């Protein structure tokens, strides 16, 4: 990177990390909500 690697690669790494978190965390939250919902419905039907 012509002596600029310490600026270029951290930029790309940070972007990759933030994009991944913004994709992964809402998916996890969605799955958690679905699990809670199923648990609640199961408890109500008992």
């Amino acid at each position, binding site marked *: 990177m012509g002596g600029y690697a310490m600026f*270029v690669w951290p930029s790309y790494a940070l972007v990759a990390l*933030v994009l991944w978190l913004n994709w992964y965390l*809402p*998916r996890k939250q969605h799955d958690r*909500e*679905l699990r809670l*919902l199923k648990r609640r419905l199961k408890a109500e039907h008992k």
Partner: protein
Amino acid sequence: MFLWFHKLGSPPHFYRIAGKWIPWLTWITVLLLLAGLYGGLIEAPPDYQQGESYRIIFVHVPSAWMSLFIYVVMAVCGAIIIIWRMKLAEVVLISSAPIGASFTFLALVTGSLWGKPMWGTYWVWDARLTSELILLFLYLGVIGLHNAIDDKRTAARAVAILALVGVVNIPIIHYSVEWWHSLHQGPTVTKFDKPSIHWSMLLPLLLMALAFQFYYVLALFHRCRAELLRRERNSKWVEEL
């Protein structure tokens, strides 16, 4: 068209449609990102003045564009909330805020990492940088205000007003490099009649910008689906899932 739009505004319909679009959006985003990264990191030549350091623009510029675009989307949602009190607009507004804040944060940090080798400093209180920092505070304000109010309908109206008031910052950010003397360079790409960037650099930049647009819709759909489940957990359609 109006009927389709009206139907899309219904939470269960939106939840299902978003679920169907997510796999397609994921693939399109990944392919565009790969093409943009290949073009930006491998195909594009080094800049004759900045050398390899300019490659940061392939993530910095699209992040900065998205930070402005998402705030405008939020302001439009804010207007819809105030005029029509549409539930889906509330969900889109509040789901967009963390994504917009992330892009603003990335624009600031990657810009700072480019600034150090080019300007000799990570930060200056320049009009463009300061107005972008204010944008980050606006996003954080929207998130904080929404979390501070328990009743979600009232919270939505409050953040709608904040989003509408804050939109005045968008033209300030955009024109700051023309209105004030700034270290930040002037418009390069948006001079559509004669962009001062070679096509070998412009093409990957536009590919990355398009990838970030698709990514925004993808991330928004994931957030909206989670938010809809949380808000509508007592609705019949959620129980039928």
